[in-house]
């Protein structure tokens, strides 16, 4: 898809029917004990055959042992996967929805945009999309243009406004993707809902911006996890409670959280 960035298409019709944008699967390579554990992969999109879901596309950046092995698989190889897991992004109840993606954090947003714009339906039973939406825009930031993945696909979604940012200015705005969010918030038509996925500092910055303008904001967290279904208690994040914070499992209570639920200042 881009430098070090791959798409993996898995034929799994039943799972494809169930998943909603923002949910994830655990994926591993069968028969290997190194790498041993599954890794969480967000839905990039489902693909259809004869108008019905036939399987799932995942997008991933090669960062370690598992993703490196996955990138060497060939067509027809088998993977093990379990899911769909976690809670996806909510069906937007906003007029202007803005999606903020940092790096490989863009993966959930093709499906989010297609669903929000009524281009594709997800879930079993299918989730209804409210008619309240006036606009959906995606702000997508990466290190440099070589890492921009799936831009043509985002452009192919009718009605999706795409704004790009690169750290080095090689394509689009030179600087942080959160600069684009700030610009939108200060415009005449600010977003009234923001979905974020990407590196933690970016999401925290986006969450602070939204909070200071009373804009509803959701974050999709990534956290090291061993199982994906709540058994291992690895992937905890600090959730705000009346008396401070408590650890909650990202895999079963997230990975999508409302930003104001999280105890982002606690480290």
């Amino acid at each position, binding site marked *: 898809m881009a430098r070090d960035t791959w798409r993996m298409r898995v034929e799994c019709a039943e799972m494809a029917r169930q998943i909603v944008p923002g949910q994830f699967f655990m994926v591993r390579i069968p028969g290997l004990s190194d790498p041993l554990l599954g890794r969480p992969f967000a839905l990039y999109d489902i693909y259809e055959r004869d108008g019905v879901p036939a399987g799932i596309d995942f997008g991933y950046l090669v960062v370690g042992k598992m993703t490196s092995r996955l990138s060497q698989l060939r067509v027809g190889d088998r993977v093990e996967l*379990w899911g769909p897991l976690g809670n996806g992004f909510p069906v937007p109840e906003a007029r202007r929805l803005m999606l903020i993606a940092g790096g490989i954090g863009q993966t959930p947003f093709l499906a989010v945009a297609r669903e929000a714009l009524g281009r594709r339906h997800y879930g079993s039973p299918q989730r209804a999309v409210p008619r309240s939406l006036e606009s959906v825009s995606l702000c997508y930031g990466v290190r440099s243009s070589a890492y921009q993945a799936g831009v043509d696909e985002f452009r192919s979604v009718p009605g999706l406004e795409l704004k790009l940012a690169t750290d080095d200015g090689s394509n689009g705005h030179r600087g942080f993707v959160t600069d684009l969010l700030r610009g939108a918030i200060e415009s005449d038509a600010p977003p009234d809902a923001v979905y974020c996925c990407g590196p933690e500092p970016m999401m925290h910055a986006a969450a602070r911006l939204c909070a200071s303008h009373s804009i509803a904001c959701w974050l999709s967290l990534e956290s090291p996890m061993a*199982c994906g279904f709540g*058994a291992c208690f690895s992937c905890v994040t600090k959730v705000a409670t009346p008396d401070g914070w408590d650890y909650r499992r990202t895999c079963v209570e997230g990975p999508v959280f409302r930003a104001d639920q999280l105890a982002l200042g606690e480290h």
Partner: protein
Amino acid sequence: MREKVVENRPYGLMPRNGQASSRPCFDDPREFNKENGVSRLRVRLNRLELANPVLVASGTFGYAREMQAFIRFDRLGGIIPKTITPQPRAGNPTPRTVETASGMLNSIGLDNDGLDAFLSKHLEYLLSLGTSVIANVAGKNRDEFVQMAERLGKVPGIAALELNISCPNVAHGVDFGTNAKLAAEVVAGVRGACDLPVIAKLTPNVTSIVEIAQAAADGGADAVSVINTIQGMAVDWRRRKPVLGAGFGGLSGPAIKPVALRMVFQVARAVRIPIIGVGGIQTVEDVMEFLVAGASAVQIGTANFYNPSGAEHLVGQLDALLEREGVADVNEVIGTLRFPDGTGCLR
């Protein structure tokens, strides 16, 4: 060392009626766990009797609810839910796990909601699953173990207590498991506080696990679980820091299986106490290795994370393997390993 007579089974490892079963299991799973006492897989660990030797290890199976989409609970020999402490514990800072070569390190730090929440939120569900429930508990001192045993001992339906005297991830938590005198005292205290069978889960992070196992036996334990995780560390050299938020963690997974097998056999050869083998078990071959090395039952741990229905399948595979091998009763293979020097298990 003198070789022991195999027929001498001081811990009642015979199946209940001494008869082998020719019944093919698994056509109807509901049939499988019936109290008919003729399954070839039934095992007894002193006062604890299990429908089959395949348990799931504490801390790898949540409170079972997390697993319900993946597994048929009533096929398992038993479930050991996540460790319970007297009070809620937030657990350790993140990252809490990191994968290592053929294994993983964890430092969860006994994140749990405490005994009251276990009793009110989880126990009724666990007891409805049609399998033995073994509650795993950890206390900071002997009194905390005893108090939890008193309360859990009054709850009908719990099959046994497993004492986590071996968690490497909590300060002061490991002392009971590394000091023979303390281990014996805490086991004896729990034995005196309830009528439940008592299992001591032992740490491998000691000079002589045999000495601790003997102490647990002296304290009155019905069985010992061998082993908990091996303490380790992963390093991020660029940041000059450990990878895990807590610094050290416990190693589990296939990487530790040889260590676990060695320790199971060492205990089996020296101490007359039933053993539950734990450590890196993935396949039915692994299960057989542990049984032969002296384990009367096994716990599936890390594998639950990446093969969440695997433990159920192992039960069927074990039955089929024994059938193929012409073994009428799993107890016939337990502790049958012979070491090069002629020594063997005390069974």
